[in-house]
Each structure stands twice: as structure tokens, then as C-alpha cells.
């Protein structure tokens, strides 16, 4: 066990730090990502054939740590890098990889993940968006997706569709890459509870998709989707990078405010900071353990879900504490200096406990796949999708 950088890691860290300090804060988010890519710091773990550097998970973690240290924002194409790209690498054709991956890493194209539907969130395999194959072998897609992060800016998406309703629901799915500028695609932004609009409804009205844009085999979409979901949980909870507000930032904020509170409040605030901080440290170091496993070439397992579960919980608690110590200003959206950063952090966090698998669904996964507890009874087991609708 050794937390210190190896000589190689230390050299890498120095080069990342030097670059980030030289290149300064981001202006246009796409141009910034492109510059970072050109400098070699995006898609670090991706194979070179996919436009990456063929680097190690530790190298990627070091980039994340250094960006976080400087308070830099997340990359704009995070869903592309974290979820869509790895899925294309694993299941795409050579042609698709050549066409998409490098542009994705440079944010020349932005990507989104078109999985959830109004009637298919936790029960994702219940989705209804239909893809029907024509005589020419190409496809037509109709249906509706929802909660699609970044769809209003995205150029492409990975799209999970139903291609066969007459087999059990997990077996009749097929995955595609879809061009969001294709005829028949309509994107409508949805406003979130924090007032911003990052996610969307996406409507497909007889949208043509060439068969060459299929990812994986026909009917094998669930396997492809599992690749995405596995990477999603890892990128949301693994690797020791925090979800939501950083615990150090909250500690600084509480330290600045705590003197203005009464003695009883101070004791309570310290208890809550202590609890949130211990949970955040626990999540961080559990992420490091995960990273060490990945570095040895082990695959991320279902225990990655634990990181998302606990990281989200502690981030929610810390954001809530940060708002509480504002005193009377905790009742309004902005402090007198116009800063509403904590109130906004508080209003963003509930979504994190839903996105990428809700807390309850993650508990089911851990309970069944890690602890080996008996599975949920499933009323639709053994039925074809069409039968389960009745």
C-alpha cells in the first residue's frame, strides 16, 4: 500500500499541473476541451486506436485531481467521454470508431445518452421507442425519450430502442448511434427544480437510421446498455472524484460562518460537518481502492454502485449544511452579495440521487450482485414485452 505517486505518476502530475496553470481558465467550453485534448489530457485511458493515449486509470485520476485542485469545471462532453465513448469503443465498428471518437474527445461533437423514457426509467428494459427495419436493411425510429442530459446541445446520441416486442423485454432491444440533426428529431428542454435546463425530452418521429449506425447485434441492446451503465456508475461514483460540492470547500465556508452562530448551533454545525466530512472521506478513499483495482486491470464491479450511493448522500448532506450556516439568508435564493451558489448546490443534489440509477435501484443491485441476496420478484418474468403491457 502506498499513496505516494510513483516516479512516473509524479512526472505526469507535474506535466498536467504545468499545462493547466499555463493554459488558464476555460473560455468557450468546447474550445477548452479541444485544447486539453490536443495537450493529451482528455481520454487518457482510451486506446490510441480510439483517439486516446492508452494511459492508465491513475493518470486519468491525476488529471481529474489537478483540475479539481484548481477549481476548474467539468468538461462539457462528460456524458460522451464517460458513457457513450466507452460503449462505442466496446461495441462499435471500426468505421464508427474512426468517425466519432476523436471528434467526441475534442468536443467537436457533443453526445448524449438516450435511454430513459416516460415509462422506462428504473425499469429501463421496459422502453417502448420502436426501431423497425425496412427492406433496405436500414431502420426507422419512433418514440420518446426523456431526462436526456445535454440533448439540446448534442450532435449525436446513443439510442436504445425496441426492435422485437415478441420476446422477453431484455432480449428485444437494439442500440444505435443517432444523429440528432436527422429529420424527425425534436428536442424540448425541461426545466429542473434548480431553475436550469440541462435535460430534455427528445421525440423521434419516423427518424431514419442507417444500419451501419447500429452498435452491437440486433436484439443485443441490453448487453450494450450494460456497458454504458457500468461506465456511468464508475464515472459518477468511482475513482475518488467527488460528486457535488467538495467537502474542503464546504469546510472553508462553514469555518467562515460558524462564528456568527450561537453556541448550540456551532456544536450542531460541527457535528454535521464532521459526519458529512467523514462520509466524504470514506467515499473518496473507497474510490481510491476502486482505482487501484482498475489499475491492476480488474473490471469495475457492481460495488462501484456503492460509491455513487454514499458519495451522493454525503454531498447532499454537506450542501444542506452549507445552506444552513447562512443563517437568515438560508431562506432566500441568494445572499446579499448576489451569491446563490450553496442554495443552487442544494437544489442540484436531489437529481444526483436519481440520475444513473436511483438510490433504491443501486441498493437492489448491491444487495443482489454483491451480497448475493435473493432477487426482487418480477411480475413480468417469462412474458414477452407485448404480453407484459397487458
Amino acid at each position, binding site marked *: *500500500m*502506498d*499513496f*505516494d*505517486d*510513483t516516479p512516473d*505518476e509524479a512526472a505526469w502530475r507535474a506535466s498536467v499541473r504545468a499545462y493547466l496553470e499555463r493554459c488558464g481558465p476555460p473560455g468557450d467550453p468546447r474550445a477548452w476541451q479541444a485544447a486539453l485534448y490536443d495537450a493529451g489530457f482528455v481520454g487518457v485511458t482510451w486506446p490510441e486506436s480510439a483517439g486516446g493515449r492508452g494511459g492508465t486509470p*491513475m493518470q486519468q485520476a491525476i488529471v481529474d485531481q489537478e483540475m479539481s485542485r484548481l477549481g476548474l469545471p467539468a468538461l462539457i462532453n462528460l456524458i460522451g467521454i464517460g458513457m457513450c465513448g466507452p460503449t462505442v469503443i466496446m461495441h462499435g465498428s471500426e468505421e464508427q470508431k474512426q468517425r466519432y471518437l476523436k471528434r467526441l474527445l475534442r468536443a467537436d461533437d457533443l453526445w448524449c445518452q438516450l435511454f430513459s423514457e416516460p415509462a422506462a426509467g428504473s425499469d429501463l428494459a421496459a422502453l417502448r421507442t420502436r426501431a423497425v427495419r425496412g427492406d433496405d436493411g436500414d431502420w426507422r425510429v419512433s418514440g420518446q425519450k426523456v431526462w436526456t442530459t445535454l440533448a439540446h446541445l448534442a450532435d449525436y446520441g446513443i439510442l436504445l430502442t425496441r426492435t422485437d416486442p415478441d420476446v422477453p423485454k431484455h432480449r428485444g432491444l437494439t442500440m444505435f448511434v443517432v444523429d440528432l440533426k436527422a429529420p424527425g428529431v425534436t428536442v424540448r428542454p425541461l426545466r429542473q427544480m434548480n431553475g436550469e435546463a440541462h435535460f430534455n425530452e427528445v421525440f423521434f418521429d419516423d427518424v431514419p437510421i442507417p444500419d451501419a449506425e447500429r452498435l452491437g447485434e440486433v436484439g443485443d441492446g441490453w448487453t450494450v446498455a450494460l456497458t454504458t451503465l457500468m461506465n456511468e456508475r464508475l464515472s459518477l461514483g468511482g475513482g475518488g472524484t467527488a460528486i457535488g460540492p467538495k*467537502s*474542503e*470547500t464546504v*469546510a*472553508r465556508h*462553514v*469555518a*467562515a460562518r*460558524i462564528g456568527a452562530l450561537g453556541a448550540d448551533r456551532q*456544536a450542531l*454545525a*460541527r*457535528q454535521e*460537518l*464532521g*459526519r458529512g*466530512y*467523514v*462520509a466524504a*472521506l*470514506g*467515499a473518496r*478513499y*473507497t474510490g*481510491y*481502492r476502486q*482505482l*487501484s*483495482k482498475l*489499475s491492476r486491470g480488474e473490471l469495475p464491479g457492481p*460495488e462501484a454502485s*456503492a460509491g455513487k*450511493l*454514499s458519495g451522493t448522500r454525503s454531498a447532499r448532506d454537506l450542501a444542506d449544511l452549507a445552506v444552513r450556516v447562512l443563517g437568515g439568508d438560508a431562506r432566500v435564493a441568494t445572499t446579499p452579495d448576489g451569491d446563490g451558489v450553496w442554495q443552487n448546490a442544494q437544489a442540484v443534489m436531489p437529481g444526483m440521487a436519481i440520475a444513473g440509477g436511483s438510490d*433504491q435501484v443501486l*441498493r*437492489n443491485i*448491491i*444487495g*443482489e450482485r*454483491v*451480497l*448475493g*441476496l*435473493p*432477487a*426482487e*420478484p418480477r411480475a413480468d418474468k417469462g412474458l414477452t414485452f407485448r404480453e407484459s403491457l397487458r
Partner: protein
Amino acid sequence: MNFDLDQEHRDLAAAAGEFLAAAGGPAVARAALDGGAPVRPGRAELVKSGYPAITVPESAGGGGGSVLHLAVVAEQAGRVLAGPSLVTYARAAVLLADHPDRLAGLADGSLAVAVADDDGPVLDAAGADTFLALRDGDLVCGPGTVTVRDPIDATRGLGDVALGETVVLARDAEQLWRRGERVGRTVLASEGLGAAARILEIGVEYAKERRTFGRPIGSYQAIKHMLVDVYVAVEQLRSLVWWAAWAADHAPGELPLAAAAAKAAAATTLDQAAEAVIQVHGGIGFTWEHDAHLYWRRAKVDRFLLGDDVAAFDEVARLAMEASS
């Protein structure tokens, strides 16, 4: 960075686990509670195994190992509720570092030590003949009279200590004392980790077998999710324990925060685990015959050792605020 145990640690844990399981276990803890039978492995057998002296330098007859080595053994001790606690040996090894003769006595068993804090019954006072304490900032050592009251957890050897004639081992020893406490908190958290991991296993096994309304109870989310929350807490605790042990060995600056975090997490996690697993067992879990209460007893006592969880969370908060400004 490689944040995982090495093969050497795993081998050590396996060997220690075998020894401790053979020597102790819930049946022994029960006998100690029921009829005052001695706690096992007990000082003599434990000292013979060499495990308690892992962190004592080889020059004094110890193993010359790290706190991490001791922590992986302590996890195994926690699984079977073994006694006396490795926390006592870990603290004594820190406090006696500049006293080779006494250190050798700790390692060969000729000194039966307990570390006397000032806040009530002392861990492993029962059977101790030599006590270490902090008096007016000085580290003192001497004999004492021990009074044992009704134990909640008999494996902790708790007793009230009246110190006899003491000698000063070190003046202005607050720093040293704090370090001993922090290494002790780390090892205590590791014992808590082992106990919590073990009681979770017991709960999971039962949840797979016991059926109600035609289904195993583990298929009910109320049960499943309760056990998963324990699992998540246990894995976080494991990370914090390893970090604290590593800090004790390699990063003294990180030890105060890491040890306080591990102590706090251990106190809440073991308690959560024991309470949950009693619930999972229903009426059986509330019987004297079932082992669950033995772990529950550990939880209810351990949370007050080396400061309680409230104090540990407070310390984490103060250190975090200090570091951030």
C-alpha cells in the same frame, strides 16, 4: 499510488485469523459474560503468538512491523471478539518507545499493561499489573488497584483503576500521548471493522434462508436495503481504517484527521450493523442464545472508548475547518 493490501498483509491476516478463530470466538465471549470465564486468547497466549508486539522494534523483541500490519490483525481479532485488545498493545508500544526494557517486557509478556484514560473504566484493566497514564502532562507508569463492575461487554476487560506509586517516564508527554491515542483509535477502528463485517455476514446468511410469506426475507427491500446500507458503511470504514493506518506509518500530518474519521466511522458503523442484524433476525435476534447481542455489546461499549463518536466528529470538523483556512 496503490491503495490496497499487499500479499504480505493478506497472508498475515489469514494466519492471524486462523489463530484468533481457534483461540476465541463468540462462544468464548458468551462464557465470559455468562460465568466470568477468562477472555481469550488471553494475555499469555496472545503474547506467545507475537501479534501484539508487531509494532515493537525487533531490538526489543518485537516484530518491527507497521501499524498497518497490526491493523489487519486487529480486524481479525474484531471478527471473533478476541481479548485483550490490540489497542492496548498498540498504545503501549507508542508510549514506551524510549524505554527499551519496558518495551521488551511488553513484548515478552512480563509486563501486563493497560493504558489508563481519565474517563471511566479502563480497557483491559482486568489482569493488568502495570498502568500507563498522563498526569499533569507527564507520562507516568506504575501499579494500580482494579475494580471490575458489571460488564456490558466482558471481552473488553474494563475496570476502574486507582493508580498506586508511579514513576515519570517522560515529561511534557502530551504529543506522545496524543500519538498513542491516535494509533489506538486506528487499531480500535480496525477491530470495529472486523466485528461489523462479521455480523453483517451473519445477517446476510440468515436473510437468504429465513422465509416469510413464501419468500426469503432477503428478497424484501426493507431487509435488503438495510443490509446494503451496512455493507456500504463497512466498506467506507475499511477505506478509512487503511488510510489511518497508512498515515500512522507514513504521514504523521494526516494521522489526526484520519484517526478521528476512522474512530467516528467505526463507532457508528458497528452500532448500525449490530442493530440492523438483530432486527433482521426477528425474535431470535433478541435472545441470549443468539450471537448477535455479543456484537451489539461490543458496539455499545466501543463507541465510548478513546473518546466517543460525538467527540470524534467534532475533532474531524475542527481539523477540516483549520485545514481549509
